[in-house]
C-alpha cells in the first residue's frame, strides 16, 4: 500500500480565493458545518488509500453494534406505550433515589421516585421525534433550496447563499435559545425552530453536491434530449445529492439530540414533567453526591446514541464522499 497521498488533504480549505470572502470551499463547509453547534461531526480522516478497506475490516463489528443500539432506541421509543413499564410521571416519594436493580425499578428511581428506565424510554420518544422531524425539515427545505440554486446558479444563487451566510453568522445555540424563549416550549415549536435554523447548513451541503454533478455528461445529455427542468432536477441530480445530504443528516441527528439536551438542561425544552434525557440529566445534577446513577444513566444513553449516530454517519459518509467532489 502506498504512502498517504498529501494532495487530497490539502484541498480541505486552506487555499481560498480571497475575492470570494466568507465562502469557504464547499468541501470544507461540509466539513466544518456539523461542528457548529458544538459537537457533531467528525473532522477529516486521513486520505489513506486503504481507508475504505480498513473501515470494512476494523469497524465492522463496532458499526453493527452501533446500528443495533440505534435500532433498540427506535424500537423502545415506538413501542413505549405497550412495554411493561411503570408510568414515567408517577411520583413515589417513598421509593426515591432507589439504586439500580431495585425491585420494581430496574434502573432505580430519581429524586421524586419516578422510574428511570421508563423515563428513559419515553425520553427516547422526545429525542427521536424532535431530531427526526427537525432533520427532515432541514433536508427537505434546505436540500431543495441548495439543489435549485446549485443548478440554476446566477443571481438567485448569490442572493440565497448570502442569506445562508448571514444565518450561519449567528452562534447556533444562542439564536436557538432566543427564538425558543419567545416562540414557546412545545414539542412542535422546538422542532420547527431547530429545523428552521438548520436549513442553511443543508442548503450548503446540497449546493456543493449539486455543483459537482450538474455539469456531468448525463445531466447534459438529459437536457439535450429535451427533458424538462423538473425531470433533470429530480431524476438526474437528486439521486446524487440525496446520499451525501442524508449521510450528513445522520450526524446532524446526533447534533439535534445534544441541542435538545442542552435546552432541557437549561430548562427550556419540553415543559415538565415530560421526560427528556436532558431534563433527567439536569435533575440528576442535584444528586451528584448521593445518587450518581440519576445523572449517569441518561448521560450514558445520550452519549452512546450520539456516538452511534456519528459512527454510522461517518461510515456512510466515507462511502458517498462529498469531499471528493471538488467545487
Amino acid at each position: 500500500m502506498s504512502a498517504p497521498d498529501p494532495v487530497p488533504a490539502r484541498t480541505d480549505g486552506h487555499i481560498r480565493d480571497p475575492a470570494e470572502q466568507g465562502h469557504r470551499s464547499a468541501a470544507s463547509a461540509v466539513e466544518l458545518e456539523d461542528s457548529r453547534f458544538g459537537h457533531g461531526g467528525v473532522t477529516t480522516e486521513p486520505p489513506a488509500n486503504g481507508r475504505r478497506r480498513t473501515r470494512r475490516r476494523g469497524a465492522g463489528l463496532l458499526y453493527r453494534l452501533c446500528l443495533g443500539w440505534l435500532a433498540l432506541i427506535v424500537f423502545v421509543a415506538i413501542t413505549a406505550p405497550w412495554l411493561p413499564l411503570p408510568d414515567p410521571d408517577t411520583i413515589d416519594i417513598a421509593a426515591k433515589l432507589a439504586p439500580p436493580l431495585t425491585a420494581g425499578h430496574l434502573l432505580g428511581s430519581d429524586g421524586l421516585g419516578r422510574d428511570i428506565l421508563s423515563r428513559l424510554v419515553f425520553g427516547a420518544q422526545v429525542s427521536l421525534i424532535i431530531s427526526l422531524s427537525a432533520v427532515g425539515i432541514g433536508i427537505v427545505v434546505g436540500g431543495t433550496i441548495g439543489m435549485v440554486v446549485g443548478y440554476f446558479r446566477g443571481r438567485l444563487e448569490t442572493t440565497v447563499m448570502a442569506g445562508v451566510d448571514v444565518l450561519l453568522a449567528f452562534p447556533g445555540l444562542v439564536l436557538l435559545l432566543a427564538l425558543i424563549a419567545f416562540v414557546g416550549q412545545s414539542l412542535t415549536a422546538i422542532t420547527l425552530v431547530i429545523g428552521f435554523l438548520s436549513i442553511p447548513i443543508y442548503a450548503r451541503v446540497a449546493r456543493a453536491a449539486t455543483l459537482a454533478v450538474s455539469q456531468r455528461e448525463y445531466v447534459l445529455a438529459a437536457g439535450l434530449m429535451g427533458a424538462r427542468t423538473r425531470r433533470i432536477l429530480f431524476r438526474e441530480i437528486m439521486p446524487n445529492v440525496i446520499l451525501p445530504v442524508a449521510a450528513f443528516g445522520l450526524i446532524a441527528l446526533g447534533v439535534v439530540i445534544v441541542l435538545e439536551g442542552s435546552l432541557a438542561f437549561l430548562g427550556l425544552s419540553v415543559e415538565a414533567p415530560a421526560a427528556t434525557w436532558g431534563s433527567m440529566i439536569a435533575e440528576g445534577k442535584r444528586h451528584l453526591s448521593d445518587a450518581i446513577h440519576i445523572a449517569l444513566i441518561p448521560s450514558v444513553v445520550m452519549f452512546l446514541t450520539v456516538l452511534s449516530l456519528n459512527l454510522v454517519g461517518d461510515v456512510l459518509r466515507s462511502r458517498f464522499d462529498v469531499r471528493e467532489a471538488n467545487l
Partner: protein
Amino acid sequence: MGRLIGKKLLTLVPVLLAVSLLTFLLLSLLPGDPALLVLGGQAGSAESIAAVRTDLGLDRSLPQRYLSWLWAGLQGDLGTSYITRQEVTGAILERLPVTFELMALSLVMALVIAVPLGVFSAYLVGGRFDKSVTGATFGLLALPNFIFALILIGVFSVGLGILPATGWSPLSDGVLENLRSAFLPALALSVGNIAVFTRLLRTDMIATLQEDHVTLARSKGLPTSRILFRHALRPSSFSLLTVAGLQVGTLLSGTVIIESIFALPGVGRLLFDAINSRDLLMVQGIVLLLAVIFVLVNFVVDVLYTFLDPRIRSGATRVRA
C-alpha cells in the same frame, strides 16, 4: 496586502448590517407584546397599554424602529431593559470579561492538549498511540459539554473536593483564585474542541510529513522534535487556525450552558436570565453582540491567514493542489 484587507473590510459592512437586520426582525416579529410584559402580565387598561407602547416606541412602524435601534446601537446604546431597567450595553460590557476569559482559557487548553496529541499521533500514524488517540477523540465528539461538565464536577468537586463546583472569583481576588474558579468551566467548554483540533491537526500533519522539506530536514539529521514542531507544525496549522476561528461560535454557544451550570457571571448567564424573564431588548442586544463578535473573529482569522500563507498573500489565487 493592504488592498486585500481593505476589500475584505468592505464586504464586512453588508454582512454586519444583515446580521443586525435579521436579529431585529426575528425577535420583533415573534408573537407576544412587550408592553404586556412591562405591565407584569396583568391585563392593564387599554390606555395604560397604549401609554407603555408609546413609551417604548412600539407604536412606530417596523422600519422606523429598526433604524432608530440600529442608529442608537452604533453609538453604543442598545436600549434599556423593560424588566430590570438596566442599560443593555452596560450590562453586557460588565459581564463580557468573564466570558472572554472563559473562552480564551478554553481555547488555550484545547490547543495545549490537542497540539501534542495531534502531532505525535501523526508521527506514529497507525501505531497503538495513534489508534487510542483517534478512538478517544471520536468518543469526545459524542460527549455533550454539559455531561462533561457534570463528570468534572463529580470528580473534582464532589469526589476529590479540590476545585469549586460553582462561583467565580474575579481577577481582583488574585490570579490563582481566579484560575481555580475558571479551570473546570474552561475545561468543560473545551471538550469538543480538543477532539476537533486533534483530528484536524493529525490529518494535516500526516500530509505535511510526506513533503520534501521534511524529508530534507530528516536527511540533514535534525532531531525529531525539531522537525515535528519547527518544520512540520506551521504548514500544518492553517486549517487548525480557521477551525479555531469558526469554533468561536460554538464556544459562544457553549458559554451559555457552561456559565449556567457553574453559576458564572458572564454574558451567557445574562442571556439565560434575560430569556427566562422574556427580556426582549436584552436578548436582542446580546444576540446581536455575539453574532458581531463571531463575524469579526472570522474576519480576523481570514486576515491572519493571508499573513501566514504566502500563497494567498501574493495573490496567487485558486491554486488548487
